[in-house]
């Protein structure tokens, strides 16, 4: 689950990470008052779950409180379109109004889980404010790493190695190690999946500040991070995906094609998209029904697919393991009977209880296109449209 920049900064600040002076505003009036309080130049930052906001007009400097009002008025209510959002963009319902800081150096700092090492890793670089993946690829020596051994936790020497490695010695060394330790602690205690400060700024007046911040929480751990779970901003998620989540379907992602897919298992679902592509088509969505063992869950999932105006054909590709194909078949029949999937519907069943499942489809009297295998199902779906 992603946090907004302002939420991430509040969280980091609660662990002792220094952040620029600033407040969140949901109206131009509030933005003006905050700018007044801060005094001098301020930065107005549109709050949306996307990077690359600057180039998209989501970050602007206001010289005066009046200008802050004007910029906030423009931003609040807009759809911010960045290279990461897709063409619809994301709605801006609040802006962060912050002191404009005078930058001497920009550094990079983040914490994530390295799956192959099975440990959190703190990543640092002197090349702050840049695309860190590019830096990592082109100049790996510019990337510093420290792994956190769960047996002893993050240690002071690691913070020092990173701080000295970033060139933060002398008076900057203590604040730098404190910042690194606070960032790491915040990540570990909140079940973080990524915590990124890019850039960490050394100001001309000798402060170290988290000028921007991204923070995501491990979705699987939200059950024990209840306070953070409440910070979720549903406005930043696509309507269809919300609908799917409300129906208890964890993994639904809206895509750009016209073949709606209902599949069990993430791997099979990804492969179904691949097979559709190979057959010359495009999927309208990724949907992993998981081990949903009730016809109602299947009906709910098919309703989301069937009511998607982009969808011209529905492909059901199920290989039952824990999930039982007869239960899924019943759900497909119910959805068809309820008129939820008027589109041509291609069904491929295999695995657990496949005979019972196929029998149900056979006896339903409904017009399903039946596929025998994986590739055939994809081809039939593409044919159904063209």
């Amino acid at each position: 689950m992603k946090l907004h920049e302002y939420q991430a900064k509040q969280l980091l600040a609660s662990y002792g990470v220094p952040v620029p002076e600033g407040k969140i505003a949901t109206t131009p009036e509030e933005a003006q008052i905050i700018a007044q309080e801060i005094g001098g130049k301020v930065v107005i930052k549109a709050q949306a779950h996307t990077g690359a906001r600057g180039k998209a007009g989501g970050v602007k400097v206001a010289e005066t409180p009046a200008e802050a009002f004007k910029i906030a008025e423009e931003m609040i209510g807009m759809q911010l379109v960045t290279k990461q959002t897709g063409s619809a963009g994301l709605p801006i319902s609040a802006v962060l109004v912050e002191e404009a800081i005078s930058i001497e150096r920009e550094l990079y700092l983040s914490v994530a889980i390295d799956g192959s090492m099975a440990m959190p890793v703190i990543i640092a670089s002197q090349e702050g404010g840049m695309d860190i993946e590019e830096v990592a690829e082109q100049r790996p020596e510019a990337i510093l790493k420290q792994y956190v051994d769960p047996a002893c936790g993050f240690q002071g020497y690691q913070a020092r190695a990173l701080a000295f490695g970033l060139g933060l010695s002398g008076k900057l060394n203590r604040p730098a190690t404190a910042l690194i330790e606070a960032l790491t602690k915040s990540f570990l205690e909140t079940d973080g999946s990524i915590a990124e400060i890019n850039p960490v700024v050394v100001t001309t007046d000798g402060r170290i500040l988290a000028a921007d911040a991204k923070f995501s929480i491990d979705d699987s751990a939200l059950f024990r991070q209840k306070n953070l779970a409440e910070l979720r901003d549903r406005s930043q998620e696509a309507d269809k995906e919300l609908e799917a989540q409300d129906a208890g379907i964890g993994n639904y992602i809206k895509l750009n094609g016209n073949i709606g897919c209902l599949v069990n298992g993430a791997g099979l679902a990804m492969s179904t998209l691949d097979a559709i592509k190979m057959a010359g088509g495009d999927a309208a969505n990724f949907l992993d029904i998981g081990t949903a063992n009730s016809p109602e869950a299947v009906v709910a999932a098919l309703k989301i697919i069937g009511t998607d105006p982009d969808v011209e054909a529905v492909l059901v590709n199920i290989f039952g393991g824990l999930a039982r194909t007869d239960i899924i078949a019943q759900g497909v029949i119910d959805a068809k009977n309820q008129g939820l999937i008027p589109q041509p519907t291609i069904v491929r069943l295999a695995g657990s209880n496949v005979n019972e499942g196929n029998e149900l489809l056979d006896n339903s009297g409904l017009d399903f296109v039946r596929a025998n295998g994986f590739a055939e199902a994809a081809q039939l779906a593409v044919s159904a449209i063209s």
Partner: protein
Amino acid sequence: MSLLLDENSKVVIQGFGAAGQREAIICRDYGTNVVAGVTPGKGGQEIEGFPIRNTVQEAVDEFHANVSLIFVPAPFAADAILEANSANVPVIICITENIPVQDMMRVKRVLNNSNSTLIGPNCPGIINIGAHARAGIMPIDVYMDGNVGVISRSGTLVYEAVDQLTKAGIGQSGSIGVGGDPIIGTSQAQALALLENDPNTAAIVLIGEIGGTAEQEAAEYIKTMNKPVVAFIAGATAPPGRRMGHAGAIIAGAAGTAEAKQQALRDAGATVVKNPGEIGSQMLAVLKDQGLA
């Protein structure tokens, strides 16, 4: 016991709820020796003919359980793995999905110092066809006795590959689902080593996914292997940066792309399948080519 599971396996099931019970019965019906279930507080009961105990240690002491199959819900699954490990169960298979990553990080750290092997989590388990031993949730009907082993991060793609093999007339020695999470107990490379050393396996299907670098590590191992490997990478057409169910499948840098993985596997000598519908037919071609079919 190159597949970690054979005629001598005695399976205890941790988390004997609806799913655990259903799969216990399927395993038993197939011929697997399921010796007990563990549900704290139900110790002493008998459910569906299986004795229930409060702790794994009791199941080990009384029934000599040597394989644990875990269906415990995600918030308690790491604890269940550690319990099996503390009872020195040599093979631990965790089906549970959505275990917090930081829980698995701690589990993995403990298992580094252990003689137990963990398969999963978020996996379909292991089946040894010749031994009629199943510790998992895979459908049995699609399998056919033979000598091709299947390894996969994704559960349903195990079934899909097996189904295609069977329809192509190719039997299987068994399958190992290593699991789709970012932190798993046994890597694809380690699973390949198990099958390379399994006398009943002659060739291997390896099914990877976008994200991470596990397939590149597997490719390194494939360079040292004698048995042919047919590989498929799921998610070649997935849009970057979206989480598609398997947390491990987030594209993280260029190494995580399907292209990079396919290239590494090809360079290592594996036969890479691009169309997921052609896993069976391509394996048939490889076997014919090598005089194995």
